[in-house]
């Protein structure tokens, strides 16, 4: 257990000097959890701000620019507003499930963040089934959406939730399979191991053609899985009002909102780790300064986040049946074919390595 907590090395000895060994483990885990929670709450807020700025840039607007320098504190002000708002709900809602739903989403997205290697030594939890864990965790979120839509006792919310169920289950397949294609190259599910392999070239270069196909499929289905435009069937404000979270207000709504943005970051972070070498610098230019790994990781992740925002602010939304057609009739067969192609390339050793 302790061995997986890499970032604690220094703190560990300090904590050990204060209390008996049996309590240390739990204390350390609590500490890390607190740090992660804080960091990612702030990350979520920053992503919201980024989205608003990017959207404004696409839409000939200025975006938030009043609160703080360049509107830096706009989302913090929003969060404070949401905190202080009344929590409303429908009379005939299933109260227990209704209150439970936001936590499913927010917890599942925060859990997923635990396994990412932000740099060589900055990783909270390096399990050997990293990718598998991520896929498993990211599909828990949909339970929250389904519960929220069902328990709200609102038809619009219900339609949104049902759409979400259909959509997430379908696109889960593509996310999984496209990552599986890359696993063929690395031979390991462990995230630190996957990055280790990329020291001889990022996987998107190593696997060339099938890797690029896998990346495209991954980005499409990843966008779909976070329920963002052009796959925002779940919310589809022109069709369903606000979709599954129509009846939520205040902080419960903020949880849904925050989870969406953190999920977007997770998708980008997985993409970074699996396709673009994680914290590795391009051509090893900053190999001598290990802490710059965080910079490279975030740079790559935010580049992918930006790509997803680009999708959102330019594409119209698909219709629900077109969404399923795209997945089952196009992405899935291409994906299966792609896995075979990748297997052949790995088998015949056609990969590009430096």
């Amino acid at each position, binding site marked *: 257990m302790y061995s997986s907590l890499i970032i604690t090395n220094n703190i560990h000895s300090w904590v050990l000097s204060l209390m008996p060994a049996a309590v240390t483990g739990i204390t350390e885990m609590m500490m890390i959890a607190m740090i992660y929670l804080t960091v990612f709450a702030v990350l979520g807020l920053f992503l919201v701000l980024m989205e608003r700025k990017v*959207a404004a840039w*696409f*839409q*000939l*607007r200025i975006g938030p620019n009043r609160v703080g320098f360049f509107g830096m504190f706009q989302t913090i002000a929003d969060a404070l507003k949401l905190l202080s708002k009344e929590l409303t709900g429908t009379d005939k809602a299933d109260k227990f499930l209704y209150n439970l739903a936001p936590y499913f989403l927010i917890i599942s997205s925060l859990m997923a963040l635990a396994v990412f290697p932000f740099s060589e030594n900055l990783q909270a939890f390096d399990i050997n089934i990293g990718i598998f864990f991520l896929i498993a965790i990211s599909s828990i979120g949909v339970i929250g959406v389904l519960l929220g839509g069902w328990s709200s006792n609102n*038809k*619009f919310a219900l*339609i949104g939730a049902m759409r979400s169920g259909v959509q997430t289950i379908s696109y889960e397949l593509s996310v999984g399979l496209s990552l599986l294609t890359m696993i063929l190259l690395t031979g390991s599910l462990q995230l630190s191991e996957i990055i280790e392999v990329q020291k001889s070239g990022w996987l998107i270069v190593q696997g060339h053609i099938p890797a690029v196909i896998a990346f495209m499929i991954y980005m499409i289905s990843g966008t779909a899985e976070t329920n963002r*435009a*052009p796959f*925002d069937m779940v919310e*589809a*404000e*022109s*069709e*369903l*009002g606000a979709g599954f979270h129509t009846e939520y207000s205040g902080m419960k709504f903020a949880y849904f909102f925050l989870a969406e943005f953190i999920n977007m970051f997770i998708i980008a972070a997985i993409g970074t780790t699996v396709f673009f070498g994680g914290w590795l610098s391009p051509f090893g230019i900053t190999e001598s300064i290990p802490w710059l790994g965080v910079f490279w990781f975030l740079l790559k992740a935010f580049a992918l986040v930006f790509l997803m925002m680009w999708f959102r*602010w*330019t*594409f*119209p*939304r*698909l*219709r*629900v*049946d*077109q969404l399923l057609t795209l997945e089952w009739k196009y992405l899935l067969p291409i994906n299966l074919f792609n896995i075979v192609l990748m297997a052949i390339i790995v088998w015949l050793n056609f990969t590009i390595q430096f």
Partner: protein
Amino acid sequence: METATINNNFKSEEYFINMGPQHPATHGVLRLLLTIDGEIIKKVEPDLGYIHRSIEKMCERDSYQQIVHLTDRMDYLSSHINNEAVCLAVENALELEVPERVKVIRTIIDELTRISSHTLWWGVMGMDVGALTSYFYGFRDREMINDIFEETCGARLTMNYNIPGGLMQDIHPNFVKRVKEFIAHFKTKLPEYDKLLTGNIIFQKRTKGVGVLSKEDAIAYGASGPVARGSGYSCDVRKHHPYSALDKVSFNEALHTEGDSYARYLVRIQEMWESVSIIEQLIDNIPEGDFKVATNAVIKLPKGEYYQKVETARGELGVYIISTGGKNPHRMKFRSPGLSNLSLLNHITVGGKIGDLVATMATIDIVVPDIDR
């Protein structure tokens, strides 16, 4: 398993859902009662009257000059054209010949109004199918037109620029210059619309073959404007019954025969180009002269019935005045394009998905005050 057995075991039930009166896709206070089976629409029943102000009743109380100002509030996106309809009806009844200058200015502003309405529609159309960015692009160009209106008649939306006998005041000295600036600007921006939305594969998938309206049905349901022209029914009042300076300009009537949402979309895009061309033909040749002819302070129409149709951005607006010779009309009827166009909504959306309904409604381009009046 047999299909019948499956259907028996998994019974699906139809349910009602209330779309509106507060709903982003209904563009105002329109309420749609939907009967749906899962996502598939079985029946659409519009419930109207949320913004009914009984303008027709108010007209029976008001003088003809006052009536003009009520018409702004019907189809507020074509306010100038609505004003003109009443003014033309009154002028025809009085057999009043307005100066050429008035006719040309009216036509230019008509077409600017049409462009302004269509740019707004284009933005909202994009928003309804999920592309939010188009909304701001549309508003960027609309803003310039509104500025021109503001300078010339003091209002940006409900302009009240027409009066029976001419115009409220002369055009602003900057008018010609700014219209030319706008035309130059708009000609570079219209291709951008195509780049952002028209050619987009998702957009085409969402609109092609959706909400198909045949020509026969378009006529039977009394459709007019871009909705009918998207189905191939040539109904442009500007072509068939030209009014103001429209007999002096040459333009093509935008016609498409597919009848689906995409055809209606293309008709409107093409109409914007045609409007630009009409303005270009007129803007350099605004004749000198008076901007109005004097009318009596109290206008009394001779006994009789007068019908005037004009082409608003949404279709054919008819003004039907029954006069008994007094200073108020005995009966004033506005044949609004919106009501007839809305009546075919159920016909063309049944069997589609909720997303189709939204896309179809966007291309029918309803303005609710125009329907309710």
